[in-house]
């Protein structure tokens, strides 16, 4: 349990650094976790070279989903969109620093799924777990 609830997760859950909604934005996407109704939306501003200038997330959910969103958003500042597109499951797991079963993993990966769907410019119907496998 101590492993699962690393302090950073509880801390980021309680006081996230990147919660919000950017307007204007270059990228916007939102999606739900069908298991629990958790919701994440992300907004991203990029510069003319497609580098992330600013990013934020909003939504509701468990500590894993919200903390991973916050950590993920933090990690993409200064990255190019191509780098964002190539983020994987493992990157998120590393950010969180804990082991997760398949159900909790979905909580952790919701923000990555939303982020990549936005980066790729997908439609709502096109978003799939394949983005984060």
């Amino acid at each position, binding site marked *: *349990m101590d492993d*699962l*609830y690393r302090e950073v997760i*509880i801390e980021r859950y*309680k006081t996230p650094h990147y919660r919000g909604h950017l307007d204007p934005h270059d990228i916007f996407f939102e999606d739900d976790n069908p*298991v*629990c*109704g*958790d919701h994440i939306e992300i907004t991203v501003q990029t510069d003319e070279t497609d580098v992330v200038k600013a990013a934020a997330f909003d939504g*509701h*959910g*468990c*500590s*894993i*989903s919200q903390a991973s969103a916050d950590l993920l958003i933090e990690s993409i500042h200064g990255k190019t969109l191509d780098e964002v597109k190539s983020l994987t499951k493992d990157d998120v797991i590393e950010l969180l620093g804990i082991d997760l079963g398949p159900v*909790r993993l979905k*909580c952790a990966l919701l923000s990555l799924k939303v982020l990549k769907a936005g980066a790729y410019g997908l439609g709502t119907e096109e978003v799939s777990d394949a983005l984060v496998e």
Partner: protein
Amino acid sequence: MKPKTPLNVDLLRADFPILTREIGSANKKLIYLDSTATAQKPTDVIDAMNDFYRLNNANIHRGVHTLAEESTAMYESGREQVAALINASPREVIFTRNTTESINLVAYSWARTNLQAGDLIILTEMEHHSNLVPWQMLEAERGVRLEFVPITNDYLFDMDAYRELLKQEPKLVSFTQMSNVLGTITPAKEIIRLAHEVGAITLVDAAQSVPHLPVDVRDLDADFMAFSAHKMVGPSGIGALYGKLDLLNAMPPFMGGGDMIKTVHLRSFATNEVPYKFEAGTPAIAEAIGFGAAAAYLQNIGMDAIAAHEQEMSEYVLEHLEEIPGITVIGPSAAHKGAVASFVMDGVHPHDVAQILDADGIAVRAGHHCAQPLHEKCGIQSTTRASFYLYNTKEEVDALVEGIYKVKKIFG
């Protein structure tokens, strides 16, 4: 209603091998409070299927060799045991995959034959997605109308609103006999009686009632009833649809294929008798045998005794949960509900509650429990749900309460 023999829970726990399971690196003893999602299985049920595969396995209905004769007899005796549990005739019991398929069977075969655009179907606000989505699909496809009986402020079936809705002369009333979130037990017999007065057909979602309460389809006068083996100490992969014989006889088949036919020519076929008409292809044979063993196991213990034990558990858990500051239990008082306690905790997401409890070996469920509209109605996203069955004890409730205090500390 006092049962003749109160449950000897300590004794019957020995029937469930999984209850000795230890969880996590700290080897915590499993405290399984998730039977509403799926129940654990006694040795009787597990061994019935195991032995079948080791000794008797063959395809049924079509073989004359010894194994085929044995398998056919075992499969049909599974059906008899399930029918006996709900006081139905075996002919009226169709094996499906689960409650969900049972309801879809009615939606595809009965409703698409008997309902027209504009016809009204009455549901309730506390339905499981399985008794909601099939009708939404029908609404989209055929233009039937859906209306929902609300829940009252104390989480009960709103009988007055129902009587009002009945004036619109519904063709079908489909409702849960026990909510898997609130635990609310609905007055099924009265709901059915009133529906019949206006000529409506009734479908009872009995996924939660058949496992936990004495249920008698004749006494209820239900037209259709759907339930799953896995929620009543039986195997996964099988469920049942009860239907009155006249209704079933008049319905067209749902799926086509082997076993559901009497004769087939290249360009025509004639259907087999009920219940086979609705069992296309090789059925879940081992599962039917396990389902029968589960029904026999429960009947042997006595549904009255099980219900009484759960009533006691329900009172105990509500009393103790409601004492914890920051915990709100969603649902009616213990007198009107099964042993299901869904709650929210200030400032902590149900996933986190469940995860921290899990570290102590306590298995509860977190989410919307496939009843998202009900959660919306209650103004919440999701709940943590602890649910209890014949094998649960008060000590396990105490452990749950202790675990919740731990959660509070971590997120405090």
